[in-house]
Structures are given as structure tokens and as C-alpha cells.
């Protein structure tokens, strides 16, 4: 199955919960959820790919660093990511390929800034259906 995500409520900000058959799929879905807050995904054309590699001591740290990397690509490196393929996650790191387009495209329908990814109420767990992750964002 394709991973799914859902936007969660928070008194001031918002969260993302995502599921996947595998942990990698759940992480990829969470990244899609994150970028759906920033930009209408339908308005992004995949023109380039970027390799992403992050170390992390535990699944929660890996999730925050992975999404932080996506956020940096958008806010610091002028790249708007829209497609996420997590090739490996666990064992102290994550490897992924991210597809998107350079910032500034006239077709992009931008929404709001995400300031950061937080550890508030973070969750990474295995379920009967696969994997579930939850993370909150500061907007």
C-alpha cells in the first residue's frame, strides 16, 4: 500500500501522523504530510532529485532529523521537495531520494512557513498494519 498521512490539531500549531507497511514508507508519508502544509503538492513538478542521508541514534531522532532535512531543502537550499523514497531507515541512519523542483516556480501554490519539527508527543511504533509515526510542527 501507499503510505498515508493525516494533519493533526494542536492549540497553536499542527501535527502529522503517517502510516506505512514499512517504517521507510511511514517516514516517506510523514515527509509528504510536512510538505503538504507548506505547498500544494499538486502544484510541484518533479524536475530534479536530491540524495538525503541523516544519522540518528533512535527512531524519534531519525524522524525529526529527516523531516528537518526536508525543511532545510525547502527553506535553506531553494528546493521544493514533493516525492520521497526512503531506501533505508534504522541501524543508526536514514538514506532517501527526494524529488522536486527549484524554488521560485511560477506554478507553485505556496501556503505557510513551517518553522521547525518538534519532539512534542512524538511517536514511532509498529502496529498490526505496519508502522505509525506522529510528529508536531511549529508553524
Amino acid at each position, binding site marked *: 500500500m501507499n503510505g498515508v498521512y493525516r494533519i493533526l490539531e*494542536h492549540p*497553536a500549531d499542527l501535527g502529522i501522523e503517517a502510516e506505512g507497511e514499512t517504517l521507510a514508507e511511514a517516514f516517506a508519508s510523514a515527509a509528504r504530510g510536512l510538505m503538504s502544509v507548506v505547498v500544494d503538492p499538486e502544484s510541484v513538478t518533479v524536475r530534479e532529485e536530491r540524495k538525503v542521508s541523516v544519522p540518528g541514534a533512535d527512531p*524519534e531522532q531519525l524522524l525529526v532529523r529527516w523531516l528537518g532535512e526536508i525543511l532545510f531543502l525547502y527553506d535553506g537550499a531553494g528546493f521544493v521537495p514533493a516525492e520521497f523514497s526512503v531506501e533505508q531507515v534504522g541501524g543508526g541512519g536514514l538514506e532517501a531520494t527526494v524529488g522536486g523542483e527549484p*524554488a521560485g516556480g511560477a506554478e507553485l501554490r505556496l501556503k*505557510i512557513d513551517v518553522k*521547525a519539527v518538534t*519532539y*512534542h508527543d512524538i511517536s514511532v511504533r509498529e502496529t498490526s498494519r505496519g508502522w505509525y509515526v506522529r510528529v508536531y510542527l511549529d*508553524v
Partner: protein
Amino acid sequence: MQLERIDEFRCLLPRSSLKGMRIDGLVYAGEKLAQQIGNDRTLEQVANVATLPGLLGHSLAMPDAHQGYGFCIGGVAASDPERGIVSAGGVGFDINCGVRLLASAVPAAEIATSIPAILDGLFAAVPCGTGTKGPLRLDGGGIDAVMEGGAEWAVGAGYGEEGDLPRIEESGKIDSADPGMVSDRARERGRSQLGTLGSGNHFLEIQVVSEVYDEATASAFGLAKGSTAFLIHSGSRGLGHQVCTDYLDSMQQGMARHAITVADRQLACVPVRSAEGRAYLGAMGAAANFAFANRQMITHLVRRVFKKTLGADDAPDIVYDVCHNIAKFEQHETGGVRREVLVHRKGATRAFPPGHPALPPAVRGAGQPVLIPGSMGTCSYVLVGTDRAMAETFGSSCHGAGRAMSRTRARKEITPEKLLSEMSRRGIHVRGQTRSGLTEEQPDAYKDVNAVVETVHGAGIARKVAKLLPLAVMKG
């Protein structure tokens, strides 16, 4: 968690509320606000903060407090520099997010027909929303000069006047800032964002001074009934967000070395005097200076639009500029002893009283202006700091209305068309970068700013000086 009411404006959250609390919590709220604060996890967060090592006084929550991440928004926590901690989460992601009020002697009534044109001019001149770039790109070491100099850098670069600086908290420059402690990633996020408003709850409003409660103080602040004002709410943009992200990460690793455990990873902290603590405070100061420079550049753009639209010679002056998210070393009396403490303000405003030596001569006699923005379409207040704030809250007060409704719910409760028609009915012009961004910030998403201000006024931790009503709102 149960609050124990002390008086009409104060409640105690006793240390018995949660295992591990080292100090009591103190919440400034009347019955209704206390009920609202109890609707989310604010009290749990006030209690969690009280478990951190080396805090002094109380774990404080202002009447606009609401659930945040780790620390609540509207929280104040003061740390003993010798045995206490510094926490990146205790300042928050938007380091030195704050507000700046500008006032013009020109009566708003005289320029009523020009307000839409000024708003259009501001919307064209001040970049807002996500993905926008400011008027400069700070290549190479240019960004370090901003992080070192803050508003002083901006004035030196032609964005303002020397006389602006004393009207800014810390004169617009935190001297202990150390750009060397800021990551390249944070620099990259900030390079193009100086002079941009941002999105979310950031805004730029044109206002009119509608009521003056204290003529002498208002006059010292440069405010008169009927005059036109501009309120700018913005922070350190991606640069500050990345500094907090970086140090939350490194503090988590540092905690193990210093044998500190916390109830929530977002509370990550290290001893103030540790290498990690000093590094964070240096980086935080650098990000705070970036925010001061950012609001200074926006001020310059506002003045330019004002002059161009009205053909006026006089541009609005700065009333004051306050930080809402910051940690600072200050002198306070605790347990009968005057000492240096590290005050974390996360969604709280410094509120120093008349005569405080840290205030510039221009406002020292009157006291520090405390700027309280309300929600879109309601009203804002100017207050002044008090001795009582020094005695009870480490010289702190509230910072705004405080959210009462999630963004998702706010969006569902009103359509952009209905919101704009409601604003128009009230005579308020609105420009927003996105329709959803506007509805997420609708007035009902916030607590009643009047109730918040009456609480701090009644409790005596700030005193009302003037009320301002919005004429036009620009949202990112």
C-alpha cells in the same frame, strides 16, 4: 491538574501536582481564563518546567498562556546561572520573535481615505508569506555582520536612524551574540530572509490610538489619542528556527553528559555555565540580533511607504520594540537576595518599571513600554512595566491574546469570504498572502485580549497606558 486560587488574578499550581516538581507554578488568570488554560496541556507543561534543575521563584504562566512544545507559550522560567539550566526550548524556535510599535503624529482621521493605498503599498513593499525573499541577499560574511550588530547594523546600512536604537529592547543589539556558534545551515536559511515578515501569526497592522488611560506615560511614549500607529510582529525567520533546531539536538546529547533527565524531549537543557550552554546563548544572541535587524528593515520599508503615499516629510517614530522569545541575564531579587538570573521568556514580554537602569533615558522615567497585540480585527494595548512585575515575575508580563482554537478548527469555522466581509463591516482593510492563512488567524481563534490585559493590569504586573484599534491588517 488542579489550580489553587490565590486571589482574583492569581492561581498556584502546587509542587505536589506532579512528581519531581522542584518549585511551584504560578498562573496569572481569572476564572474564565483559568478555565481556558485548563482546556489544553498548558498546566502539565508549567509543571514539567518546574521539574528542571536550578530554577528560582515560580514556573510562571501569563494569562495568555496556551499549550506549546515542552514549555507552554506565555511562560517565564528564571534559572540560577551557577546551578541551573538553559533550554533552547525555553526560548522557542522563533528566537526574538517580537513586536515593534511605530507612531506618527498624523491623526488617523486625516488620512482615512489613504489607508487602503498605504496597505497596498505595504503589501507590495514588505515581503510576506512562505518562500519570499527580502530586499538583500547576504552573501559570505554579510550575514555575520547582521548577527553581530542587530538593529545597529541595519541603521549603519541606511535602514533607519541613530535615534531608533534606544527605543529597542537592548538597544537592538545583544552584545554577547556569537555568530561563530551559528551553523552554516542557519546562515543559509537566513541569507535571503532579512526584511521579510513571515507567515502564521506574523502581521503588520495600521492602527489608531483609540483610548489613552495614562496621559503622562502615553505622552512619554509618543502616543496621543487619534494618532496613527503601525505594529510589526515578526522574528528571526529561518535563521532563528534553525538555531533552535540545532541546539535542541545538541542539548539532547549534552543532557546525558550532565546527567539531566527531562519529562519531554522538547525540554532539553544543559547547565548555563557549560560549554553547550554558553554556545547556545551566543547563537541565540546572534539570532536575536538578526530579528532586531529584520524588524528594523521592515520599519524602514513602512516609513518609505508612508512618506511616498502621503507625500509626508515626517515618518513614524519607534515607540518601542520588545522581544517575546528570549533568554537574558538580568538582575533580580529572589529570596531577599539581589542576584544575576537567566530569565527565559517564551511568549512573554519584559516589563521593567520606571527608573530601571536597563532602560534608555527616553523611557526610563516612564517605565518600559509593554506592547500587547490582540488578534486580527480586535485591539492591541500599550502597557508599562511595574515594580510588582520585578517582585513577582522577574520583570515579565503577557505577550498577546493567546490562541484558544486550533488552526484546523479556525479554518473550518469561517470562510475567507465571511471573514473579509466581517472585517469590512468593522471598517478594517485586510490583505493576506493566502486565504487559509487568514482564516487560521481569525479573531475567534484567540482568547479575549481585553481579559488578558485586565488580568495583568489587575494583578499589577503591567499597567494600561493606551488602546489601539486596527484600521488595516496585512498577514503573511
